[in-house]
């Protein structure tokens, strides 16, 4: 850690990991509800558990991104953070607002929650992933603005590097596209149309910039490859990501009542979306192979390489599987979508946040790298979580293929619930893979408490 204000990242990272644990708890509960429908009913029905599962994911990734920004922006700009106090204040506001929202989901009936929080003044609730009450949404905007103000002011007074510019661009994009969550037109087609401007343009647009910047930062640090080289790759990757990702929004406009040309635009451009992810994989391996130093933090290198591979598989390959309109005609909204969603979020965003945490956390705790033993435990957690996620994805894909076949392709299509019974075996197997994932996560958390002789911090 070169600048004392970088330490504000620490609470953000801790909160991210804590909420990650919460997300997985609810994921397991839902995995069980898939096969034992009345588990936890009526206290926590499936729809509530799902809302908590997905909202926690988004919130902890946002904590991760903000922590990453607070860590890497001072180091990149070579100056202290504009206001560490503001960063800490925003941390508490965001944490409390997030926790209150989740508790609201769990303990208050959703309709009552809507009434209590002013949904009748401006109706924004009730849409997938954007279920947050109006007050929470406003809170998110305030926190985001204060955060961007803090980061932007830091950049203005410091060195401007490509990594920090790309990071900032991504974060500004994230805030700007979130504003569309306040736009809720009565026309259902328009509603869906702009809903994707938040959802798609986040995960397949501006988040990719954030991800590329974070990965590039860690790779510079652990490989010692010239900044110039890494920056060129960054330019190529973000241009490809934006060209394919922005027009690729069209793959959500196939069947929602939008004009037919979206089937062409969406198919062609989203078919190319794996390219930037492939470039990112090549980039990560290339940089590690050309490393000029042996960084003592081996675990961070593993997470970084894992990000490249798993993002390409989950977002690239599994996305491509069902992105062409003629295929999507059958697979739309099936378990194949769920398979893609799980591996893409894990491979791209979960892993990139864990990469930066793995790199930065030892430094924040005053050492260059964790002890050998702690790193071994951490790497075990990587393999447990990654392999079980591969199995979750494979089981869901198998379930999806069977579902599409029985319910949509077959000459004698079966009703939805009957099909669900037919594929319950895969849901059971997915649940067990999920249990292994949870074991991996516990291992991960435990790795922070493993004692041992750590590598001392040598300030050059």
């Amino acid at each position: 850690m070169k600048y004392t204000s970088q330490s504000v990242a620490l609470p953000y990272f801790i909160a991210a990991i804590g909420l990650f644990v919460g997300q997985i708890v609810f994921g397991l509960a839902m995995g069980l509800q898939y096969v034992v429908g009345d588990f936890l009913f009526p206290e926590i029905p499936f729809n509530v558990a799902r809302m908590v599962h997905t909202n926690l994911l988004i919130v902890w990734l946002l904590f991760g991104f903000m922590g990453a920004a607070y860590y890497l922006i001072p180091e990149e700009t070579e100056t202290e953070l504009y206001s560490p106090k503001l960063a800490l204040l925003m941390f508490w506001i965001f944490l409390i607002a997030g926790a209150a929202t989740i508790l609201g989901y769990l303990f208050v009936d959703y309709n009552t929650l809507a009434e209590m929080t002013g949904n009748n003044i401006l109706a924004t609730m009730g849409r997938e992933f954007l279920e947050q009450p109006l007050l929470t949404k406003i809170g998110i905007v305030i926190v985001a603005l204060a955060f961007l103000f803090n980061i932007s002011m830091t950049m203005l007074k410091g060195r401007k590097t490509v990594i920090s510019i790309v990071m900032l661009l991504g974060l500004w994009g994230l805030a700007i596209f979130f504003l569309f969550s306040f736009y809720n037109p009565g026309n259902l087609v328009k509603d869906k149309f702009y809903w994707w401007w938040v959802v798609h343009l986040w995960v397949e647009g501006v988040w990719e910039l954030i991800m590329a910047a974070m990965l590039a930062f860690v790779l510079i640090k652990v490989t010692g490859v010239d900044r110039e080289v890494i920056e060129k790759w960054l330019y190529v990757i973000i241009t490809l990501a934006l060209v394919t990702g922005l027009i690729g929004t069209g793959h959500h406009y196939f069947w929602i009542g939008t004009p037919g040309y979206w089937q062409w635009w969406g198919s062609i451009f989203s078919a190319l979306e794996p390219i930037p992810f492939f470039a990112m994989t090549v980039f990560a391996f290339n940089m590690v192979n050309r490393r000029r130093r042996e960084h003592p933090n081996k675990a961070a290198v593993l997470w970084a390489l894992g990000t490249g591979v798993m993002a390409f598989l989950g977002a690239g390959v599994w996305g491509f599987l069902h992105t062409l309109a003629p295929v999507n005609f059958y697979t739309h909204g099936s378990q194949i979508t769920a398979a893609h969603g799980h591996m893409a979020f894990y491979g791209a965003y979960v892993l990139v946040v864990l990469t930066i945490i793995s790199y930065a956390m030892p430094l924040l705790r005053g050492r260059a790298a964790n002890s050998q033993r702690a790193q071994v435990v951490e790497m075990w957690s990587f393999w447990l979580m990654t392999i079980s996620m591969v199995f979750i994805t494979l089981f869901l894909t198998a379930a999806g293929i069977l579902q599409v076949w029985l319910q949509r392709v077959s000459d004698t299509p079966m009703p939805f619930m009957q099909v669900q019974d037919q594929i319950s075996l895969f849901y059971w197997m997915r649940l067990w893979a999920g249990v292994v994932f949870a074991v991996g996560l516990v291992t991960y958390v435990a790795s922070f408490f493993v004692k041992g002789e750590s590598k001392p911090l040598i300030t050059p």
Partner: protein
Amino acid sequence: MARNSGPETTARRLPGDLAIWFFILAELLAFGVFFVVYAFTRANHVELFNAEQLTLDRTSGAINTVLLLTSSFFVVRAVQVAEAGFSRRAAPWLAAAFACGAGFVVVKIFEYAEKIGAGISLSSSTFYMFYLSLTFFHFMHVILGLVIIAAMWNGARTGRYGPGNMNGIETGAAYWHMVDLVWLILFPLIYVMR
């Protein structure tokens, strides 16, 4: 990769920056996919495509081809002049290249205005969807190319380029030639071939 091994080195060398070549490959792939999808879609609607193709203005398409080719020639001349050590003398060549590119944009805008005036839109038919999408996708590349040429012109004017510093001008030139290259397929494919 070039190795500066001696005065008479004939080592093979990729002009410009490696990153732009990765980018160009991705662009070629995107255009390639678009072209092939067009061609195979046409195979299922030959009569529709043949009939509506006749409504396109082939002459303005040909003029635009000439403009792009000439523009590319000027860029080559600018690179040659810069390589000979006369960065400032490259500037007028780049200005000429920019003018040709701008001419392309003007012709294209007239063509679009005529089509939109006739009530043609992306939803009119599969053919017009492809015609408008493909040419507009290319059009956006021309606009970006013009911005790059303007930046190169500025660099040349301030004497930035020379035999020891060809990276910037070669990188921009490679991109501009790519914009030209894809049009060389686009023009016969959409305007002429039936």
